[in-house]
């Protein structure tokens, strides 16, 4: 793969990867080149990074998977008692 032109589909895939810091240097370069001439992907990228910024806010919290399983187990026991 040595081409410099990306399809928009590929570009959005790299953009998604980039949100998790998983795109490599080459990918970032050709994504930037793509963004120069592609308006739609520019828009997608800006929305995507805005979303990342919101979600990375430390106040946004979720339960760990293990904690959730524990909760589920306890609740199922209670549910069985109840019925």
């Amino acid at each position, binding site marked *: 793969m040595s081409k410099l032109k990306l399809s928009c589909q590929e570009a*959005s*895939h790299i953009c*998604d*990867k980039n*949100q*998790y810091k*998983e795109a490599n240097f080459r990918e970032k370069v050709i994504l930037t080149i793509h963004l120069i001439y592609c308006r739609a992907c520019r828009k*997608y990228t800006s*929305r*995507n990074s*805005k*979303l*990342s910024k*919101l*979600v990375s*806010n430390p*106040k*946004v*919290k*979720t*339960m*760990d*998977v293990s*904690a*959730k399983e*524990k*909760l*589920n187990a*306890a*609740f199922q026991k*209670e*549910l069985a008692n*109840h019925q």
Partner: protein
Amino acid sequence: MPKHVIDPNQWIKLYSDYLFNYTITRVNDREIAQDLVQDTFVAGLKSMKNFKGEASERTWLISILKRKIIDHYRKINSKKGKAEVRMSYNSDENEGDWLEERVADPFDKTAEDSIENSELGAAIHDCISKLPEKQANVFKMKTLLNYETEAICNELEITASNLWVIIHRARTAMAACMEKNWF
């Protein structure tokens, strides 16, 4: 208006994250928050008959949770025995320098900040709950819990490219939803 029905089998899946986020912004401790959420579900189960169907399940559960949080604070307060009076001086030599203390601390989080943050959490969980189940799952694991791509693939038995497609759809939907509800 259609009456809301109650179905405890779905509770954990649908509401635990929302309730947890609601709780943790108010008690600031994971363990306690988890206990409170669990208490809420159990209490909800016990008083299911009282559910009139006027509000949605989630609103109803939140109202129980609010009571639980208030109870929690009552309990820790009564342990102390009496109200605590706190004076905060920055350090000993500053004592008496009251004018100094009135200057706003730039590193202090303002009240507005934290209000905005707790609402942001609710808005995000609101949007996540609108996603299809699989997308919601993958998005949460990848974005909020920061799992490695490989770990998610193994756990859910999907391929990496499959995962990225799901992530892409979820992100598109999330961005649209947040744009509508947040900005």
